[in-house]
């Protein structure tokens, strides 16, 4: 698989490779992976994918995924209305 990069993308890769003292290919592969993870985290934040799907995409357990989300401070997609609905149910079960 090959891909054509524009001038700005090449500049970013070269800059990061210099900063990290890594090869350009290695930096590019890492950026693709991080970009993919970022995209998945955004999808989770918007409520487009579930916690289980996110943990699968990140190849982590649910516990590890919760730790990552906590570290990044990504807000849960649970809404205030959900909290209010849950408040009605909890008294029936506990």
């Amino acid at each position, binding site marked *: 698989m090959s891909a054509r990069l524009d001038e700005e993308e090449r500049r970013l890769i070269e800059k990061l490779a210099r900063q990290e003292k890594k090869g350009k290919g290695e930096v590019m592969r890492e950026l693709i992976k991080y970009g993919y993870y970022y995209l998945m985290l955004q999808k989770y934040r918007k409520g487009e994918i579930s916690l289980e799907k996110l943990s*699968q995409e990140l190849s982590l*357990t*649910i516990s590890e995924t919760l730790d990552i*989300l906590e570290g990044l*401070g990504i807000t849960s997609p*649970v809404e205030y209305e959900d909290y209010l609905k849950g408040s009605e149910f909890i008294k029936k079960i506990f």
Partner: protein
Amino acid sequence: MVVFDTSTLISLAKIELLEDICKEVEIWITPEVEKEATRKKEFFDARFIKRLIQEGKIKIVKIEREKARKLKKEFPLGERECTSLVLAWENKTALATDDGPTIKVAKICGIPFVTALHFLLRAYEKGLLSKEVALWKLRRLEKVGRYNSTIIQRVRSKISEEGEK
């Protein structure tokens, strides 16, 4: 009895409230949830949950996986999350989940749902936790559960405004 999804089970284990809840509520989980929640044996929460299962405080209940697979085809959820929804639906009981998309599907299917935050607040209201401990656990759950600030403020003021239990 309440069916627990992995998200709420682990969140309550992380803030060390799960055992208190087990004493008050019959907790059911699917084998798929058990497997995931206890997968990394070196994790505190995994070991904690494992012990509660071994002591019979959390019950493992199977469902037909085909039913979960059918549900998974219709919604953007994982198969494990679907097993919890099916178990709650079949037993006409509530689902404890802290996952937004799972809550949406629970609403569609008419399954009552609660989150870890509801258990914390209720444990305080029932006098199982002192105000100081409840507020400390709320600070911890705020990070683990990453609820939006409106929800957290609401719960914090409920605990702060009520007299000591």
